[in-house]
């Protein structure tokens, strides 16, 4: 007997689970199929050593779309979620670090002693870019309009956007258009002089991008990173028990609405009859019928692996093949015997995001190696110590530290990412940490290094790209995931896509799942 559902959702990452929740809430029968043993995609918490819980992959998730938390009653289903006070610490090789907090004037007061030239500039900068972030946030909460389209829906959303953009005022709108395609290095050089301040913001702008801060379009990267925030910098969502608890709450919420979730079940094929979805076939041969399949996988998997080749036009296939992923970051997770003592830090600084990124040149040089398939000997580190804000993540007195290491190209020249390369990566990261926190290397109880290849294998990040497609100007908005197919539907009737590969590409956590579910619901009687 073949099972039958209204919707089969492929993949159990956060966006898929959000979509499943919305679909079930609207009365659809939903089956979620996840090939791995865990849910959550790149938002996952593991416990490789007893008592130490790591946010194994992403630790600086985008703001969670507020509507999602309410609509799916995640609080009721166990989500304990706050947003950390905005705090970015730009460590400096010598002297005290730079502290960026939510209140621009307070940031400026702090800068007065460490970077006096920039103290006066900071509030103006924060004020200048906030409307850009607000506009981007607005764009991220709706289906992207298709320029050039004359469909009423597209014209409507374009007009809406145009009116919204006009609300910026003439000067701001010009600035918005001028700033987006800039190299973030130029933007920062226009405002600031302190190397560590610029290095930290530049590094945040090129997170998971195969670009250095001198590459054009990286200013957009900074705004994308800040989407959903009312402050510069933004706070990171703090989920009690680790980021993986978001998926857990979503799972509880979905199941309570009757969603069936199966993990460890690999899907072999999306079945298509007459260019319409008929269901899926599992690896074991079992089939599941459904007239709607919503795939949260990366497009490469959805279209090139799970569909029969003849289903799609060659032009569409070419567009899918052209998506650039290029993961460039590796992850190092550490279990620590004691609190790391960063030179010149105050105790509360460990609550923030610590950037070991001493200058724009440092970031650019770290990136240069990527172009030639090498890992950076002197990387850029983005460090958080989650156990400071959530002591449940480590035994008393001990800590977990989570480190993104830029840059580490997926395609490493030579032998590729073998054990030696992986350990070399961890070594260079720890060596750099040791220069800022001398007690750290000696206090490591356990270390885990995840190369881009590991990120692909363990968390389904294609080419180690946790955004499921580089977030560059040519791969966002109406171009995401492929040009002209940004409305979550596909050339196959009944097949829809969601996830980080679709708009807004993880710019707001849960948003693509919510928008995709809405799209699915609107398409059916």
């Amino acid at each position, binding site marked *: 007997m073949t099972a039958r559902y209204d919707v089969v959702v492929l993949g159990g990452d956060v966006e898929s689970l959000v979509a499943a929740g919305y679909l079930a809430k609207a009365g659809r029968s939903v089956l979620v199929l996840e090939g791995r043993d865990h849910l959550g995609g790149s938002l996952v918490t593991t416990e490789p050593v007893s008592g130490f819980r790591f946010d194994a992959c992403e630790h600086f998730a985008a703001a969670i779309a507020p509507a999602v938390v309410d609509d799916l009653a995640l609080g009721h289903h166990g989500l304990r979620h706050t947003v950390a006070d905005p705090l970015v610490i730009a460590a400096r090789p010598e002297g005290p670090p730079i502290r960026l907090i939510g209140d621009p004037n307070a940031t400026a007061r702090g800068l007065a002693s460490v970077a006096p030239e920039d103290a006066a500039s900071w509030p103006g900068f924060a004020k200048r870019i906030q409307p850009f972030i607000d506009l981007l946030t607005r764009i991220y909460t709706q289906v992207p309009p*298709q*320029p*050039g*389209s*004359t469909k009423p829906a597209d014209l409507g959303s374009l007009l809406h956007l145009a009116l919204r953009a*006009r609300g910026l005022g*003439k*000067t701001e*709108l*010009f*600035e918005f*258009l*001028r*700033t*987006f*395609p*800039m*190299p973030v290095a*130029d933007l920062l050089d*226009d405002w600031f002089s302190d190397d560590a301040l610029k290095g930290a913001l530049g590094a945040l702008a090129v997170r998971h991008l195969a*670009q250095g801060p*001198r*590459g*054009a*379009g990286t200013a957009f990267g900074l705004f994308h990173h800040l989407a959903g925030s009312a402050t510069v910098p933004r706070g990171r969502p703090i989920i009690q028990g680790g980021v993986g608890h978001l998926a857990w709450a979503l799972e509880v919420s979905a199941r309570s609405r009757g969603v069936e979730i199966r993990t460890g079940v690999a899907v072999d094929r999306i079945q298509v009859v007459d260019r319409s979805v008929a269901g899926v076939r599992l690896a074991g041969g079992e089939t599941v019928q459904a007239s709607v399949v919503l795939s949260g996988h990366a497009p490469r998997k959805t279209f090139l692996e799970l569909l029969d080749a003849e289903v799609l036009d060659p*032009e569409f296939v070419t567009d899918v093949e*052209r998506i*650039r992923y290029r993961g460039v970051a590796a992850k190092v997770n550490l279990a620590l015997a004691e609190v790391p003592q960063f030179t010149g830090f105050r105790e509360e600084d460990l609550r923030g995001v610590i950037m070991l990124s001493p200058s724009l*040149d440092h970031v*650019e*040089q770290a990136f*240069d190696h990527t*172009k*030639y398939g090498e890992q950076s000997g002197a990387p850029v580190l983005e460090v958080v110590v989650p156990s400071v804000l959530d002591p449940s993540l480590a035994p008393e007195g001990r800590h977990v530290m989570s480190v993104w290491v830029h840059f580490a190209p997926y395609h490493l020249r030579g032998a590729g990412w073998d054990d030696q390369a992986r350990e070399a990566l961890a070594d260079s990261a720890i060596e750099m940490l040791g220069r800022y926190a001398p007690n750290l290397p000696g206090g490591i109880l356990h270390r885990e290094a995840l190369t881009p290849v590991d990120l692909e294998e363990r968390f389904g990040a294609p080419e180690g790209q946790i955004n499921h497609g580089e977030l*560059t*100007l*040519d791969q966002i908005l109406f*171009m995401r995931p492929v*040009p*002209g197919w940004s409305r979550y539907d596909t050339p196959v009737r009944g097949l829809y896509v969601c996830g980080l590969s679709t708009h807004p590409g993880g710019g707001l956590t849960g948003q693509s799942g919510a928008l995709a579910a809405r799209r699915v619901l609107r398409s059916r009687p």
Partner: protein
Amino acid sequence: MTRSYDAIIIGGGHNGLVTAAYLARSGRRVLVLERRHILGGAAVTEEIFPGFKFSVFSYVVSLLRPEIIRELDLASHGLQILPLESTLTPLPNGDHFMAWGDHDRARQELMRHSLRDAEAYEEFGREMHHMAMAVRPILEMVPPDPTSLSPSDLGAMLRLGKHMHDLGSERFHMLYRLMTMSSADFLSEWFECEPLKATKSASGIIGTFLGPRSPGTAYVLLHHYMGDIDGAFRAWGFARGGTGAISEAIASAARAAGAEIRTEAGVERVLLERGRAAGVVLEGGEEIRSRVVVSALDPRRTFLQMLEPESLPGDLVDSLRRYRFRGSSGKVNLALDRLPDFTCMPGPGPHLGGAVSISPSIEYLERAHDDAKYGEFSRRPYMDVILPSMIDPGMAPPGKHVMSIFVQYAPYHLNGGWTDQRREAFGDTVIDTLSEYAPNLKSAILHRQVVTPKDIETVAGLSEGNIFHGELALNQLFFLRPAAQWAKYRTPVRHYYQCGSGTHPGGGIMGASGRLAAREILTDWGQRP
């Protein structure tokens, strides 16, 4: 001297001369003032060494708008464009990649390197031609203000929107991708042959401070397809008599229409009366009055040198200070005793009548850029080499030759600054690198002239030596060139206009800025252009 003019043009570069010619043709009394002893700005031919003539700065032409050639009848004023038929890319392994202008030969050569690329090449050429056609109307329009609700701006925006819509979604997306992608990524979608990709992508980095992997470098590829030769590999040409001959032809057209042109007449500043431009003051103190003043200088000079900053709105001054020049290229001009002998293609031959591009791979170009990012000139630079005397024997004494080497990257902001010593070290690097491919070069050199970005600034008057009057980057194009709200060739000072490459569409010896500026001035005078 109390003579008065309708228009004074500051700067006798090609755009200034184009504006002068168009204004004079409509019956206006026009005076062009050039600081140097020769006309042309960066488009000059000079006999640097006796008997050897050089296009000292700008050296090839492809983008000069056909309507300007036609309307000003430049052919009858002596303009003759000789095509460059090929581009040779020598490779370190002794092989080469040859891009022929001739379609069949180009295809044959491609097949030698990659069958796949030979197939893709045809379609690529067709698509790029379509894209170039799609961009053309944009080059020919005065940039509208996208934030304005005035009928003319809204109308222009709607026309632009309709134009995009008429392209169809596929071509619109391709155009969008061209505007936002890196040339390396874009070309990699089509081709696998490294020297082909590198040689093509080199055109995307010229005059910018970006490497071929940086977004925003792809659309410049289109410039190659804007020539009138459909699908041709390279629509570059060389003006008989050197690049200065283009300037001379335009100047001749302007004079024929009644324009007056004075050289060695540097302008000190614009003369303001009651906040309006009323003429200019020359460096010697002489005042010349006119109804309008038009600056063909780059934006920094136009606004911040010719005017007192106090006469400008503060936010415009701010944005001009943020406008980026940072020249990244230099020139080496050689007088040669004999022809260079390229190891990959020994002896004389038709390849010496084309360009030689030192761009063996994308990685080579990226590494060249890496040096410049940190303030050094490239240890192994990208070079575009031509032998003008092969195309136009009049450029050198009989049996001798001139070689023009365009070099990137040579950052204006060199660590420690440019000195005579650093200039010569830069020249040595260029010659050493080129000698790897043409070993007899060193012994053939009679004279050499090394031009750094600093020299381009000092001699040709281009700020920071940027050959395009400011980077052709996405944030400095169209309605943002040179500054928001001042992209329509006007300035906040009444009767003061701008017509140089720092305005839309700018860059290359195109002349489009000069022509559009003249039209706007005539419109303000209530005259149909």
